[in-house]
Every structure is written in C-alpha cells, then in structure tokens.
C-alpha cells in the first residue's frame, strides 16, 4: 500500500509538473493541459498503431508535435492577451475543450485505443507485486525532476525562466524577452505533459474523459501545494496519492476522487494560499 501510494504520488507529480512550470514562469494557467495530455497520447497511439513506427520514435514525435502546438497556442492566441487573466483562462480552457471534444467526435473511445506496456511483468517490492511500468514511471518522474532542476538552475535559458518568473520587468531590462520565455515555458510545459502521458497512459485506455480528470488532478495538486513552488507541488502530489490509496483500501475505490477533492476544499478553507504558499502568494491569491 505504501508502495502504491508512492507510485500514485509520482503520477500526480508528473501530471502537475507541466502545469506548474508554465504557470510559474509565464503566469498563464494552461487549462488546455488535459487536452494536450490526451492529444499526446492519441498522437503516440496513431503513429504507433496506424503508421507502424517504433514506440520510441512515435513518442518523440508526439512530444515534439505537442510542444510545437503549445508554442503555437502562445504565439497565435495568448500573446495578444498577456496580462488579461480572464481572457487567458477562457482561451486556454476553450482550446483544451476544443481539442478534447474534437478527439471525441473523431471517435476516440473504447478499448482499442490503448498503448502497450513498455515491459510486461512485475517485481516484488517489500512483498508487494508492482508492475514494471509503474517502476518506470517513478524512475522517469525522478529523472524528469532532476533534469528540470538542472535546466532551471544551470542553463542560460533556465535562468531566464527564473528571472521572468521572479520579476518580469527587471528581466526585460537585462535583455530577456519575456514573450519568448513564456512561449518556451508553455511549450516545455506541454512537452512534459506529453512525456507523462506517454508513460502513464499504458496503464489504462486513452479516453477523452481522462483528459478532464487530468486537468482537474493537476489543478487540485497545484492548488493544494501552492502553485508556484515545485516542492509544494511534489509534496501535494504525494499527499493526494496517499489519500487516494488509503481511501481505496479502507472505504471504496470509487470514492478516491471525491475524497481527494474534498480534502482540497478543506485545505482551501483552512489555508487559502496552499500548504507551501508564501506571503507573496497570499497577496495575489486572497
């Protein structure tokens, strides 16, 4: 159970990471997150099954394509709306729904739409059988986090990201183009989102409703954790991951989502800035 909670938490962290990095840098709440997630899965499926490309290649293709789409969304739509929170929310929300419902009307539903597991079989960890796919997810999650940390702290572009996140105007005055950075952040957020899709989706089928679930989960995690802090997001993912597993074990697996979301409402009521929110964020949120 502890092991499953851990894996569950990693899955949440992967889902929320793309959302939080986009928001943290560009302040754009990417409500199209769920749409991009499923689109990534669907693209991978398409090139794998219909075009017969190898798994690895099709995954890369999907990641690149959706990353490009994310950049396109920023370049075409959001660049005109910077700073208008309301319009940003509505636009990304609309784009996400458009993607999801388009996929639905194109007939993305049913059991045939599923990605194969990378490696079949399972191993025992502390006496619990765990599918190798889930272990891969944990490894990938850790690797992605590490890569992101190195990227943000030790590359020029990554430092520019942090600059824009902290103070856009000052960043502008030292020669960082905030629009370019925001574009990149949206694109990278989308890419992370697809990477997580490629690894997580083999556990189930690709369905449109999952897209909405993913969006909600990402939002819930980010709200609980405090949107800007990556630590908070990770902590919140594990909290929700364990809560879900506990609920599934002791109450009923159909209540998992309800309990997770109810705990989110409760945390909001007690501490509106999220568990790891700082005073600066309280200014903005409350």
């Amino acid at each position: 159970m502890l092991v499953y909670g851990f894996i569950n938490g990693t899955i949440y962290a992967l889902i929320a990471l793309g959302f939080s990095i986009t928001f943290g840098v560009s302040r754009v709440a990417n409500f199209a997150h769920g749409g991009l997630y499923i689109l990534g899965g669907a693209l991978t499926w398409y090139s794998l099954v219909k075009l017969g490309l190898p798994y690895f290649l099709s995954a890369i293709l999907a990641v690149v394509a959706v990353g490009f789409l994310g950049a396109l969304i920023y370049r075409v739509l959001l660049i005109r709306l910077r700073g208008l929170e309301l319009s940003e929310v509505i636009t990304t929300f609309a784009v996400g729904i458009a993607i999801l419902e388009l996929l639905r009307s194109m007939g993305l539903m049913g059991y045939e739409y599923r990605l194969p597991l990378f490696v079949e079989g399972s191993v025992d960890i502390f006496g619990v059988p765990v599918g190798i796919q889930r272990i891969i997810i944990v490894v990938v999650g850790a690797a992605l986090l590490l890569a992101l940390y190195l990227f943000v702290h030790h590359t020029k572009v990554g430092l520019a990201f942090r600059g824009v996140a902290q103070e856009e105007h000052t960043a502008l005055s030292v020669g960082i183009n905030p629009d370019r950075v925001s574009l990149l952040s949206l694109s990278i957020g989308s890419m992370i989102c697809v990477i997580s899709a490629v690894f997580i989706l083999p556990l189930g089928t690709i369905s449109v409703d999952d897209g909405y679930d993913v969006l909600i989960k990402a939002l819930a995690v980010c709200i609980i954790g405090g949107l800007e802090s990556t630590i908070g997001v990770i902590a919140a993912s594990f909290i929700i991951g364990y809560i879900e597993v506990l609920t599934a074990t002791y109450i009923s697996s159909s209540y998992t989502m309800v309990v997770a979301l109810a705990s989110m409402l409760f945390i909001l009521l007690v501490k509106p800035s999220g568990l790891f929110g700082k005073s600066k964020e309280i200014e903005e949120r409350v």
Partner: protein
Amino acid sequence: MSLERRKERIDRCIKAVTDDIFCICSLREVAYLVFPRMLPIVGVLLLAFFVPPYWKKVLVITFMMTMMALSWDFMTSCGLISLGQALFFAVGGYSAGSLNHYLGLPFYLSIPLGTLMGATISTLLIFPALRLRGIYFSMVTLIIPLMLLRVVEVTKIMGGTEGLTALAPLPPIVYTLAISMIAMWLTFFGLRRFINSDYGLIFMALKDNDRAVEAAGLNIVWFKVQAVFIGSGICSFCGAFMTHYYMSVGMSAFALDLSLFPIASSVVGGMGTIAGPLLGALLLGPLSEALRSFGTFRIVIYAALLAGFTTALPEGIFHYLARKYHQIERWVEVPSGVSED
C-alpha cells in the same frame, strides 16, 4: 512615400444631441434612443408567439440559457470568474427535483423553493473558494461540479446515474414560454438596475479594486457571498425550471455545455455589459439547436468561437454594434512620421 492611414471615429450628430436633455426634442431623436432598446424586446415577443411549436421549445431553452449567461456576466463583473456555472444549474435542478419527487410539491412551489435551496447550497459549496481571487477561483469552480458529479454517481443519492424522473410537468407551452420570457427580462432589467445602484457599485468595485473595498471598511467576503448568491440563484432557477420542463433531472445537469454556453455567449456578445450576453445568448441558442446534428462536435464549434472571439474581437458583438450605431468611421491620412498604435 508610404501612405499611412488610420480609422477616425466621430460621434454621429444625433448621438451628441440625444446625450443631453434635447433627446426629447423631436420624434426622430426619441426613435434613435428607443429603437435599439425596443428591438430585442419586441423582436423576442413576436418571435415567441409566431414560430412553429418546435422552435417554441427551443426558445424556452434559449431564454433559460440567456439567464445563465446573464448570471455569469454578473459574477464576472464582480471579479468571480466561474468556469462551473453548471454547478448552480445542477444544484437548483436537483433541489426542485427532489422537492417534487420526495415531498410531492407542485411545480409552482418546488421551483421557487428549489431556487432558494439551490442558491443557498451553491453558495455554501463555493464558500471555501471565495477568499481566492482571479484564476484560483476559476480553478476551484471548475473542480467542484465534477466532484459533485462523482458524489452523485458513487453514492447513488437522488437517483444516481439515472437521475430523478417522472416529475410534474409545466403548464402548456404558451404559458411556459411566457413565464420563461418574463423571468429573462426580469433578470436582465433587475441586474442592470442593481449594478447601477449604489449598492451594486460595491460589487463592481470587487473586481476593479477589492483592496479599496476593504479599505472602505466593507467585508469583501460578505459581498462576494451575496454576489454568488444572486448569481447562483439565477442559475438555480434555470435548473429548477428546466427540471420541470424536461420532467427529469440527471447527471447531464452537470454537463460541460452548461458551463461553456454562458461563457461563450458572454464573450461573443461582449463581457461586462449585461446587454452583451443577452444578445450573444439569443444568437447562440438557436444556433446550437441548428447544430444539434453535429453531436459533440457542437462543443468544438463553441470552443473555437470562444477562442476566436477572445483574441480577435475581445469587445464582443454588442460593443461593435453600438459603435457602428453611434459613430461614423472614416479613413484619414496620418501625417508621415506620426504613427498611432
């Protein structure tokens, strides 16, 4: 030499005249003022009673959706950007449905009571999120209806996935149509009057500068509670009314269309104007009926419209039309070296 031109906009003479007390000087000026205001009222009235029966049903739905759009616009004007208007609709619908189903109340009791109950319950549900601002609030409103949907699905309360059926029907279509139309105009004029009153100004100030409201010694949260209560009350009425109209209420009341439609019509019509959403909803309602055969692709069209309008014509149709009505536009040359954004 490149010829730079820009669009110059000048108020029509008649607008300048009618801005003032002279507006009642001649019939022409009175007509200028009255015409755009009477057109929708009379138009809708005529339309309602002279269309074939099938379209009457569509109109009832359209009027209800218009009320949802008005309520969304009102809440947005108070700085509460809701992405889950379906929540209020569903809570109102389920309230009226259970009052009718379990207590056997007739529709003329269950609709008003359901509205009140719905507004109260919705406000309580939204309450934890009220201390949040902007996007954070939107995120929570997006989540709550989906959470409730799960609750209903899992606990099987109030009919579970099937919903409540065989509820009391509404009176014949003519009366239903009349009631819905009256409700819509009451909401419209009520909200307009409310917003322009002294008390309503506080609500508008919540959006523009809530710190100032707080500094004035007013409790923001309490005013937000009132705003949500009004907004959700309107939607709950729609929910209650539609529940009796369809004679059933089910999980589809939480559907995404219901959250999306008010936003779409407000954006298309023009946000923050009250008249804009009305116009947008009256346009989009019949349109969505005409697109019914497309199935879920309809939502794609909504969403595309939404994204297109927010980026390309953010002011919305209402402002656009008002400008055309009030102003003359012409291209004028700009002296070289002077550019205007």
